[in-house]
């Protein structure tokens, strides 16, 4: 496997950051030539929590972190991906301004630039804050890391962690959803009914997000008219917007895409790679 990864690393270097049009072709070529077999792959991703607080607001307990890791591990187990966490690495930043950072705001950049906890090539920077405006969380994509490593990671509304105060979004599934993005997945409704959708073959295109608990008995919901016969709207997929207790699946195609994206853009996460061998996650 190590030899194959060396070959892939060249492809990574050839790909300019954000070159999305080329990325699709490259990914297809990569899959056909590598013949990636996700079932044979395993990776453990170290998670570094960075809790932004405003006094007592935003504090996260040991139990919440442990349960969040459990939720991530359960969700990503079918993909062979697990998550680890060391309580000794938890960072708390008491800053009222950063606590309310908006998506892709100057505050977000300042906060991440000052408080990134781990080299993003080797671990996940998991920020919690309270962004407001109905936002539950966001992530950066793998292809963005090389060109903008400071911003890499996921940002979560603090109340979305298990035991949090944001029902029905307090079962830790926002983190599953955002880590899905961080590993290269788009929303299942990406692009609505126009090709190529989420660039995964086994998630039928649907027009827009589903919210709440859409009934299985009322399929196909907002499935696109051109969907293959018998398709169902992916109302239980982690990459949709349904309630936390309604999400429970990644498809095989999504798992393949995650591995391909990791192998192309986050090779340092793969156990056994040259980057990871003998190298604990590099903590700043």
């Amino acid at each position: 496997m190590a030899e194959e990864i060396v070959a892939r690393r060249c492809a990574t270097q050839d790909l300019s950051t954000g070159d999305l049009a080329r990325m699709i072709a490259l990914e297809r070529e990569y899959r056909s030539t590598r013949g990636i077999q996700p079932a044979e792959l395993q990776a453990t991703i170290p998670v570094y929590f960075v809790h932004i607080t405003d006094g007592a607001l935003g504090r996260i307990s040991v139990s919440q972190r442990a349960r969040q890791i459990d939720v991530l591990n359960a969700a990503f187990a079918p993909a062979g991906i697990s998550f680890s966490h060391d309580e000794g690495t938890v960072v708390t930043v008491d800053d009222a301004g950063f606590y309310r950072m908006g998506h892709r705001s100057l505050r977000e950049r300042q906060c991440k630039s000052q408080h990134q906890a781990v080299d993003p090539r080797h671990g996940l920077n998991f920020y919690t804050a309270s962004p407001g405006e109905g936002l539950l969380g966001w992530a950066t994509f793998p292809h963005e890391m090389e060109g903008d490593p400071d911003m890499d990671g996921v940002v979560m509304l603090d109340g979305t962690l298990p035991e949090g105060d944001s029902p029905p979004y307090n079962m830790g599934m926002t983190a599953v959803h955002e880590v899905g993005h961080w590993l290269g997945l788009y929303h299942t409704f990406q692009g609505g009914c126009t090709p190529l959708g989420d660039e995964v073959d086994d998630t039928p295109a649907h027009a827009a997000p589903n919210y709440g608990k859409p009934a299985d008995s009322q399929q196909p919901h907002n499935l696109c008219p051109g969907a293959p016969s018998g398709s169902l709207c992916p109302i239980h997929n982690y990459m949709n917007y349904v309630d936390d207790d309604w999400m429970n699946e990644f498809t095989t195609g999504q798992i393949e895409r995650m591995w391909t994206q990791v192998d192309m853009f986050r090779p340092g996460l793969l156990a056994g790679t040259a980057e990871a061998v003998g190298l604990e996650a590099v903590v700043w």
Partner: protein
Amino acid sequence: MPVRALCLILDAMVLASGDYPVHPEAVALAGAAHHLQAELEREGGATLTLAAVRDERSAAAVAALQGIAEREVLPLNVEPGASVGLADCPGGAEMAILAARDGKRPLGPGTLRWQLGDQYYGLAETREAGRRLREELGQPVPRTRNPETITGGLVLLPAGTPDETLLRAIYEQPGASWLTLGERAVFYTENGDQEDRLAALPGATRLSYAVHRHRMRVVEGGAPPGAELLHREGGQALVVIPDATDPPGTAWEDVRFRTVR
């Protein structure tokens, strides 16, 4: 397929239809595009251009939009019925999207149509424009709460509030909206700062700090049983209803940007 450089084109009838110098939906689209444009310039990763079809029907609306917008709206001189598309946009754009009210105008190569109100192949609501533009550009999109659970503030503006004040507010917050009951506009916004600014206008009245947009209805006469009266003007009342399977009256979304008497 996500692209690195996108051109959003507003068709003539998106700009010119309605009761205002420029249609509020066109202003919302422009606001969403320009906010994302500013973010992309700051954060990098992609580029976005906003253009507007200028013909004899839309020339005044394009000028009005340019007066409201804080960034460039590129005018495209296109004859009615002529095709429009990527070739009309500045060099470097990889794809164009035409926001249109119908499917009549032919599209040039490399161009996608967003028909407003079409939930499958268009744009069901202009408030989704920011998300959809991000998707086309391969930009991260935050997970959001169920819109039906989100509340906003409601402000009754004084009679004679200039159209420009309303349109600028929509440009600033593309998810905001208003309707006019009689002579006064009722403005809904999910941004607390904007709500406070509007409520501070002379003669303005705050009707609610937290109202569910999806539960607001306009009904004739008074509030039906179980509904909360927000405002009454003439024979029309704006009310909030509890969850109901057969709600009375007309939904806010169906009368927004219109005058009800």
